């Protein structure tokens, strides 16, 4: 189970739409800063700033190639994050499933046996 700090860092990094778009792009494969800057119409330094946040959160790693330093997405923190959000969602899904059943029961005028 990842630490709370790790999850905080993950969610802090994911709170920004540009960073989410960068990650969505990196799911397709590695990319250099230049390649990432292009579709977002952002300056290279602006993209680099976002990449630093993502890198600190452990969501991406940078290659060694001094010229290109390609960015690669790291799935582990994302999986950790989806795990809890999915579990939390399932808790509510169970609650609301019971609420559905109760609502159906209340909608029947005399608490009949079967909903239509």
């Amino acid at each position, binding site marked *: 189970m990842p630490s*709370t700090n790790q999850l905080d860092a993950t969610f802090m990094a994911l709170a920004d739409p540009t960073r989410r778009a960068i990650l969505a792009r990196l*799911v397709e494969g590695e990319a250099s800063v230049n390649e990432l800057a292009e579709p977002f119409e952002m300056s290279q330094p602006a993209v680099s700033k976002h990449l630093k946040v993502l890198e600190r959160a452990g969501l991406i790693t940078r290659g060694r190639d001094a010229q290109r330093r390609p960015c690669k997405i790291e799935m582990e923190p994302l999986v950790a994050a*989806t795990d*809890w959000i999915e579990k939390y969602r399932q808790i*509510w899904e169970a*609650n609301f499933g019971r*609420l559905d059943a109760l*609502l*159906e029961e*209340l909608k029947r005028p005399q608490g009949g046996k079967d909903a239509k």
Partner: protein
Amino acid sequence: MSVIFKPEVEVSTPGDTDVVVKRKFNAPAELVWRCYTDPALLPRWLGGYPGWTMPVCEMDLRVGGTYTWRWRHDEQDMEFGFTGTFEEIIPNRLIVHSERPVDVEEMGDSHNVIEFVPLGDMTELVMTMSYASAEVRQSVLDTGMTDGMGVSFDRLDTLLLAVD
């Protein structure tokens, strides 16, 4: 037979401290409101995980009134609950209340806004829980954590939408 109707529960985490849970129900707002505010009805759906019952559900539904919800697991001899004060009430539309966990360490105080949004014959329930800090929010969400789930890009997509 019932018409199959299973809308998705949407969970999102806007900003640093909020959790928003949304779900549509195939019933008018008045009825969803009743299920949320009637102490005889609420225990029938809220927190009824296997083994748990809700022996205490007291709600003094007026501004300044308090509520006490308590769940119990007989077999494990465990109990926890929430208590709080109603701050704003618009019948069939809105409840604003504070929430303080009792006997559960990993949860934190929150300020909750529960909206009942009419959509024709349906209702969207929108619950916004605001915690004191990002840390508290995370610890609340961590209580729902499990490990051992597989990796998939579908889930990444889900997450990217969820945090939007």
